[in-house]
């Protein structure tokens, strides 16, 4: 299936998939927390647009609700909350020194290839364009994990976690044309609750080790050495 033979809707979905993948890469190389959160919000916006597009093209009204929920949660509320926490803890001027950014990026690129390779056997069975987008969403999930591994700030970990969720959400929207409303509502509230809980945890971690750098957790001991 060449892209020229696809209809316009599929082309837009594929472009959206590419852009969502790009935002994942942008997050991966971002050392500043506020920009990381901004790119995360941008990814949420792309998800919202994709959902609205699927809703429009399939004439599926309940997807509009899910789009609005994505907009409210992932574009506005969670980024706002994370941003507020960063500002409160006075970390917005810190730049995290990522060790070997180039290797990290190339690792991300190879993860993209890997996810495509993994999904290749499945791709043979169904509509190829949609499952191509599925490959991208798997790579978004893997890149989210890589983000969590490579960054040391707890807030970056949360953003990585949320972007994993974004990847799964994108897969659900594109591959199944929207999950049942109950499931989507459930996931949305799970994410909301997770975000609030993370916020509480930040304060606990910070009050106990005086930093949000999780590497320092390795040095926790019962007795002082």
């Amino acid at each position, binding site marked *: *299936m*060449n*892209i*020229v033979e696809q209809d*316009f809707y599929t*082309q*837009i979905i*594929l*472009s959206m*998939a*590419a*852009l969502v*993948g*790009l935002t994942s*890469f942008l997050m991966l*190389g971002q050392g500043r927390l506020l920009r990381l959160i901004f790119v995360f919000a941008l990814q949420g916006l792309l998800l919202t647009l994709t959902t609205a597009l699927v809703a429009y093209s399939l004439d599926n009204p309940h997807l509009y609700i899910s789009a609005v929920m994505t907009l409210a949660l992932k574009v506005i509320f969670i980024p706002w909350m994370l941003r507020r926490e960063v500002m409160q803890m006075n970390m917005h001027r810190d730049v995290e020194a990522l060790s070997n*950014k*180039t290797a990290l*990026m*190339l690792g*991300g*690129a190879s993860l*993209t*290839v890997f996810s*495509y390779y993994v999904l290749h056997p499945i*791709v043979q069975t169904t509509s*190829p*364009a949609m499952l*191509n*987008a599925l*490959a*991208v969403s798997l790579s978004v999930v893997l890149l989210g994990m890589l983000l969590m591994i490579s960054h040391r700030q707890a807030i970056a970990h949360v953003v990585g976690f949320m972007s994993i969720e974004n990847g799964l959400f994108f897969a659900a929207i594109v591959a199944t044309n929207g999950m049942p409303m109950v499931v989507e509502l459930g996931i949305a509230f799970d994410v909301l609750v997770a975000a609030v809980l993370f916020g509480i945890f930040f304060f606990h971690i910070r009050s106990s080790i005086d930093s949000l750098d999780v590497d320092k957790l390795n040095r926790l001991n019962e007795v002082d050495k």
Partner: protein
Amino acid sequence: MNWLIAIFQVLLFVALAPLLAGWLKCCKCFLQNRRAPSLFQPYRDLLKLTRKQPVVSEQASWVFTRAPYIIFSATILAASVVPLIAVNLPTSASADVIVLVGFLGSARFFLALAGLDIGTAFGGMGSSREMTVSSLAEPAMLMAVFTLSMAASTTNLSVGITHVLNEGLVLRPSFVFALCALVLVAVAETGRIPIDNPTTHLELTMIHEAMILEYSGRHLALIEWASQLKLMLYGVLIANIFFPWGIAETFTPAALGYGLLCIMGKLTLLAIILALSETVVAKMRLFRVQEYLSFAYLLGLLGMLSHIILEASR
């Protein structure tokens, strides 16, 4: 007849390049609340420089005096490969993208040699920096252009542009990446702000200016003109590869005139965007250039990947 139009196109390229630089300066001045010089000031500067006597150091070898001519002609040759107002011209049919990169590379080689030749500390430093930047920028540029080549299955620019044109409006994810990569590379290669500041003579930051510090008179004019030409070349590449609509496919005067209008409109817009980004973005530390360009390379790579993953037939 076709050759005449091709030569006309190259002449147009050479003649319009200072105008683009003048327009860019106008936009920047407007954004920075300064009074802009006339749109034709770059022409006057070039004219003034050609009238002046070049001062050449006694230690300079023949490389120093010949280099401006070689750089200028190599850049013109590179410009002749890029379709400006019409596709399918004989000059662009005879060479492809790799030749284009080669021409630009040889121009840069001689510029770096000239910087080293005179033996001043600044010249050598500028040359070494320029080569560092370009060694990272060239693979990124080739990656971006290969994405187009894979989509159109040719490395010839003219054929590739015709392919994009005939396909109509197809949203290609890979082109989004290639566009971003090419924009980043173009900014680095033409020495615009996050990489190099074209208006500064501060020793810590300059790259291009450091190499041409010893030049004066008509030599300087040629080098300045070549760098304006290079800026326009990258602008035309970006405009015509990704937004080719309006470029002439037949050689009637009406089509050619329309093509000229279109490309001037596109370049005007691009210059406004460039001026905006130059006003907003601060200059980067030299040691962060490598990160910037590896990001451009990554974008090019992602473009190729998304071409294979998302678009290609299987």
